[in-house]
């Protein structure tokens, strides 16, 4: 089934939503959500990878959109997808590598990622078998951990990630130096990562 109307995405006209199929992730049978909805739910995971290999939030977003078009086109087709997450990862990976090849000069944050590292990161991304339930738990845990950050640290995080701001830009806003901002954000990320992992561990122990 698919929608009759057409919608415009990034200048392309594509058919609208198709229905998802029943698919399996490990032992979990997942419902028949539209593919695009499943894709949206995996956004953070995909954006993490895209940012890791582009270090450019705009380019990462563009690749994510292009992959969305592929997902929608797939939804309109007859083929069944048995493991949507794995399939979508591959779509994202291919779109990303294509975009990087064609937009080498668009990288915002310094020089592009070395090709060998780019390949290894892509392998980590496609090979990551972390269960979706864990991924969802990480989302809730991160919210808790962010809530636990002191105000000024949370402000730094917001400045960095809301606008993909460079360290020197942030340093001007907070009256500091780029190096100090970078160190502070580095510590905050470590803190958040540790906090998330601890919360997951705690939840596991309680089960």
């Amino acid at each position, binding site marked *: 089934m698919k929608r009759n109307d057409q919608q415009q995405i990034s200048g392309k006209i594509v058919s609208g939503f198709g229905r998802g199929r029943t698919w399996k992730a490990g032992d979990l049978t997942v419902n028949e959500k539209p593919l695009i909805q499943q894709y949206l739910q995996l956004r953070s995971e995909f*954006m*993490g990878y*895209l940012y890791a290999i582009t*270090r450019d939030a705009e380019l990462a977003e563009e690749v994510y959109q292009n992959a969305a078009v592929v997902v929608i086109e797939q939804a309109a087709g007859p083929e069944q997808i048995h493991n949507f997450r794995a399939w979508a990862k591959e779509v994202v990976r291919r779109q990303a590598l294509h975009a990087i090849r064609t937009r080498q000069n668009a990288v915002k944050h310094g020089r592009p990622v*070395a090709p060998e*590292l780019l390949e290894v990161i892509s392998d980590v991304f496609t090979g990551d078998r*972390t269960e979706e339930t864990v991924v969802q738990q990480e989302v809730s845990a991160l919210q808790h951990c962010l809530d636990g950050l002191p105000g000024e640290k949370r402000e730094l995080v917001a400045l960095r990630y*809301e606008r*993909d701001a460079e360290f020197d830009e942030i340093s001007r806003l907070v009256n500091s130096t780029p190096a100090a901002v970078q160190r502070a954000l580095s510590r905050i*990320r470590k803190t958040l990562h540790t906090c998330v992992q601890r919360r997951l561990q705690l939840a596991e122990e309680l089960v």
Partner: protein
Amino acid sequence: MTSDPKPVFEHLVIGHFDGTLSEVEERELAELLVTSEEAKELFASHMRLEGRLHSLGRDGLLREPSSVPKADSEAVQPVGQQSRFRSLRMPLIVSTAVLLAMLFRGFWPASVDAAEVLQEARQAAAEQVDRTYRLMDVRGDGDGVSIVRNLKITLRGGRRFVLQPQSGAYVMGSDGQEYWMARPDGPVFVTRDFAGLAHELKHRMPNRRLLDDVINSPDEPLLLDISGLLKLIEDRYAIELVESPQTTEYRLQATRRRGLRTGPSMITFHVDSDSGVVLKVSMSFSIHLLKF
């Protein structure tokens, strides 16, 4: 080697995301990612964290709720509006339409244009009154439309609310301090920590994402913040009064301005012409929302 390699590796991972690694360090990172399973896992989890931070930042959800700017701070005002509005949008992003049937009091001038209608609606929405919302998430496809979510939400101020789906699968609520949830055949969960409740119920509760919305709401469940929505429309939408088949209502249509990529492409308000009651809000979402 006797030292713990994790700090070194973590330094490389974070340095990578910051774009501060030298070529030598990049090779070192690549080597570790090839040879160490532990390194792979750690990198993957940092990658997910990074993705989430970018997503939360993009959605304006990284700031503390209390730091949502007030109207007297024009320079940062859009951030607050974006944050509140997006939280309303997020669970419904792939919906083709969301209908909110609402009841609240208001006043209306005898003769109005679109701007006046909007202004009056904002004033009416600012009143602190009890409200009952019916929220329907409607999706369309080639075979017609179907309601995929149908909820009744009763608000009583002070963050008190009761939320129940039409199906009766569960009921949840709060007295402003404690939150509770129960299913017809199950126990009652009560907590002061809503996030904790959400975590506990994540495998048990249908419409799980609703809980996230409630958790992330600084003001009201589901962020049915009509004042914020109307302010957003004023700032970011072209508005016009359109002809309504009902003689007893005004119909205000808001179309997202060109160049803006966030928010529904179109929002329509149905307003009772006598009482000023906003009867219904229809928001059309499309895949455009994927690109912000």
